[in-house]
């Protein structure tokens, strides 16, 4: 065994034997440091003849590389071992619960308002608003409910105190006065929906003194009842997220439309839930009709020039039909359990392209 071979074998042995990073570094310094054994040999190259150097150079360089590689390899092993030893002390019981965070939820009625705004938005309807405390003219007279008309009686109207006398203000019994306010303020073409709170003096298992409606209004030249039919069928399909809706329109009476129609859709009962669109029974879902010429005239619109349709629907009930709430009363109780169960996460923004629900 030559001298170089025995140095190599000793150096590699020492590297392997190094128990920790400090010992390993000591070996590195002893062999490859400035004053190390292998470095000393490297220095002898300078004194050699070119022929000697040609032989010894490669041998020495190879030796130096092998020892340096061995040091690096051993270093990795020792570092890994050290990290493993450290990690072994760093256990956390991750079955422990994280700190509680409050979970929020959106109310289903408000979500359904947004769904409707999204659907009608694609058809060009803007959202319009009006006050809850209305005067008699906007709530009734302008909508062709003449003074003393029996149709007024069917509205179970809430009246406001009226210390000064005269016709008392009312809590709007429907969102239809927003039709009037819109037509008084803007010129056709008009496409609006008016979601909001409405009030009737009735409180039992299926009625609450406050509830929600969405009113719709289209006033444009050439809009006829076929458009009403098409628009509402398009809406019902989009709202209930079904491809087919079997619908029927029935004549009815509303003072502010002529002709007037109620819309029924077919449905099937499946256990406790209801599937809208097809089935063997009809369910009434909304009222509609062509805007009465008297209403147009009351708003300063010439019924021979402009025409259109209006509709109104109960939002609470449509929300019940779609999402299966069995009872209307908890809607207004601010019950967190109910809202978390029937409500919606904040990131569920209804859009037509992204899905309503």
């Amino acid at each position, binding site marked *: 065994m030559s001298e170089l071979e025995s140095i190599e074998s000793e150096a590699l042995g020492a590297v392997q034997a190094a128990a920790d990073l400090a010992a390993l570094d000591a070996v590195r310094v002893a062999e490859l440091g400035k004053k190390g054994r292998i470095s000393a040999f490297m220095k002898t190259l300078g004194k050699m003849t070119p022929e000697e150097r040609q032989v010894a150079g490669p041998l020495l360089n190879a030796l130096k590389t092998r020892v340096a590689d061995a040091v690096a390899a051993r270093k990795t092993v020792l570092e890994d071992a050290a990290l493993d030893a450290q990690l072994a002390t760093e256990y956390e019981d991750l079955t*422990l619960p994280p700190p*509680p965070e*409050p979970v*929020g939820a*959106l*109310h289903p009625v408000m979500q359904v308002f947004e769904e409707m*705004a999204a659907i*009608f*938005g694609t*058809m060009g309807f*803007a*959202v319009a*608003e009006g*006050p*809850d*405390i209305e005067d008699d003219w906007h709530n009734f007279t302008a909508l062709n409910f003449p003074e*003393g008309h*029996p*149709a007024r*009686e069917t509205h179970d109207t*809430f*009246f406001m*105190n*009226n*210390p000064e006398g005269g016709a008392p203000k009312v809590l709007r019994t429907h969102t239809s006065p927003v039709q009037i306010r819109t037509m008084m303020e803007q010129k056709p073409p008009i496409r609006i929906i008016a979601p909001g*709170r409405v009030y009737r003096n*009735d*409180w039992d298992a299926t009625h609450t*003194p406050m509830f929600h409606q969405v009113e719709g209004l*289209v006033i444009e030249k050439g809009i*006829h*009842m*076929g*458009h009403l*039919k*098409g*628009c509402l*069928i398009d809406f019902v399909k989009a709202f209930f997220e079904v491809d087919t809706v079997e619908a029927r*329109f*029935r*004549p*009815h*009476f509303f003072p502010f439309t*002529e*002709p*007037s*129609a109620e819309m029924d859709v077919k449905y099937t009962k499946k256990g406790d839930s209801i599937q809208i669109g097809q089935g063997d029974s009809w369910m009434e879902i909304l009222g509609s009709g*062509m805007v*009465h*010429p008297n209403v147009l005239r009351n708003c300063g619109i010439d019924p021979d020039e402009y*025409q259109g349709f209006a509709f109104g629907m109960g939002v609470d009930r449509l929300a019940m039909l779609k999402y299966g709430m069995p009872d209307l009363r908890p809607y*207004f109780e*601010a*019950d*967190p359990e109910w*809202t*978390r169960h029937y*409500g919606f996460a*904040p990131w569920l*923004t209804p859009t037509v392209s992204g899905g309503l629900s």
Partner: protein
Amino acid sequence: MKFTLSWLQDHLATRKSLDEILDLMVQIGLEVEEVDDPAARLAPFTVCKVTAAEQHPDADKLRVCTVETVDGTKQIVCGAPNARAGMTAIYAPLGAYIPGLDFALDKKPRKIRGVESHGMMCSAKELEAGEDHDGIADLDEKFALGTPAAIALEANDPVIDFEVTPNRPDWLGVMGIARDLAAADGGRLISPELKSFSGSYDCPVEVHVDHEASCPIFTGVLIRDVVDGPSPDWMQKRLKAVGIQPKSLLVDVTNYVSLDRARPLHSYDADKLQGPIHARLGKAGETLDALDGKAYEITEDMCVIADKSGVIGLGGVMGGQSTAVSETTINVFLEAAWFDPLRTARTGRATGIISDARYRFERGVDMASCLDGLKQAVSLIRKYGGGKASKPVIAGAPKTHEDKVVFNPNDVERLTGLRVKTAEMKRMLKDLGFDIEDAGEAWYITVPDWRFDITQSADFVEEIARLTGFDQLPQASLPQADGLNAKPTSLQWRIRTGRRVLAARGFIEAVTWSFMSAPHAELFGGNEETLAVANPVASELSQMRPSILGNLASAAQRSADHGTSNVRLFEAGPIYLGDGPKDQRSVITALVQPSVQRHWDHAPQIYDAQSAKADLYALLEAFDQSPTRFQIAEPRQSHWHPGRAARLTLGPKTTIAHFGALHPRVLKALGVSGPVFGFELNLQALPNMKTSVLKTKPVLTKADLTPIRRDFAFLVDQAIQAGDIIRLAQKAHKTLISHVSVFDVYQGDGIDAGHKSVAIEVTLQPSGEALKEADINMVSDAIIKAVTKGTNGTLRS
């Protein structure tokens, strides 16, 4: 309104089945609510013949019968006392559901005391088809084996109930229903011609109409020597079927005429009338003891019927007791008149009387039908009760629809998209009773006296469309919406966004009543008289809310009482500051009733006034409203804690929000345990967001020099607000200071009593060239000077 099929068939010759008639009713606007078809209910039951009835070997009261049935010869054990050989009875096969007993027979024969019984023989009562005297139905032997029970029991007249819309009072008579069905091609109108009566003597009762506007016509007839007793069976049966209890001939006939032809009548005991009858306006001080047993005060707005004795009836609403017919009546005076709908409705509301007459007159009665009503009633009364009728007496005259209404037939297609042939339109309108004068473009149409809903062309469009059927309407999607903008307003956008921000921060959305109780509303500064509901549904819902905080606080307490504490609630909705259209505000209100939550590692921060501020600021940031543009001031609303709540303002005048802790006294009055924190943000007070046609954003300018941070601690009086220190420091240099934050507030050891130390970190952001030490010192000095001078404090060394 209820009627029976056979009653309809008195007026309508039709080949249509019950189901076809029902469908047609729905198609033309008579919304069917309920149908009771006894034939369907009685379908399993048929006539049988009892050939033998033997005593049961083991039971005294049972008989073993041999019965010929549609299913062959059956052995049936029967407990009815009247079961006997040779009887014609009703057979119920095994498995049949017996409606009157609400159970179904077993499908297999059952042994009764050891003898098998293969079915049952039923009473009419068990089939809900009538009453029995003793035992099972004992039928005329003319009914052949297998005859349906519905026919044998004469229970084959379906009852139809439908909704009469307020525009069609003529549907309150069966004839009116038949007329519409005939016009819709459902048959032919065959209402019997009414026989006129030529009275043998002049009516001794004088009648006068004194106020034409409220009662333009009043007619009557006297019938002498009437024998009042039960009305005929057929009439009783029809009245019962539609839910009216028969009483006596005179009462039943007036009810019948009213239902048959929508013509209300009133009957008086002629012997109780005193002198001539006047239809006039009431006088103050008059009273009426009405038929309902109550006394009513008469006002000058009411139309009354009066004789010498005073008021004897409220026209079109209710008659009086003093002239009522009774068992002893022999001479009856029948009234057929017309009362103004609006006045009738007012009288009805003022008295609270709900009567069939009021219901009909306030919707409208055919003014021209008075004499026909008398004809029909006289003929029925004389037929079943005898008596001699006078000549009719007439005061006033009917005001019939004289003005013709113009119909433009092109409006049908213009408004509905339907194309209906001219001849077909004419036929429909004629069948409905309209008289048409065709002038091409426009038709001049005379409206029948029973219609009150036809005033213009669109009304005819509805008639044509509903008789054609809305199923024939074309279905067209809306055309493209050129020039229409469906974008939300900034308020709508803020509501949508704000709700999502709060929900993402753990808040549950509530929708609570727009009302509160008046005392609760007052706690929140809302005691406006004009915001009180005059007819509240309940006292706790009697005042429009001036704030949402109270409703949310009560809800949080309810929730805590049910074991869910620490709930975060919010509501985006209206509050009411007055009754004008602009007095309603859209607010977002959030509220937390915090409770300590335990956790193994560290207890989460308890919700406090700062948390409410953080949530409010998160909303403002989401609305692109940097909170730094607002100022903080003392609360102005008395329902906030005086020291732990504040008001966010924009300049001296505009209040944007209140936030912090609610006043403990308010919470106590609400019955809510405190503390409770929250905010109420008035969305309409917020400035509008900058909107620009250009959607491009300004180029990002990113500081390339490292910011420098310096800390300062000031000793100030404890009343000095941190916000002031921040503002003073911020203002010390216009461009360099990019941020000031408070990192410590300290009171205690080393600080004089009544003072505090507030430590701030100031960030300097150089731009262009790096700051030299001298520049930094200059800014530092300026900060120290500004704060110490502005707060009367000192730099803490």
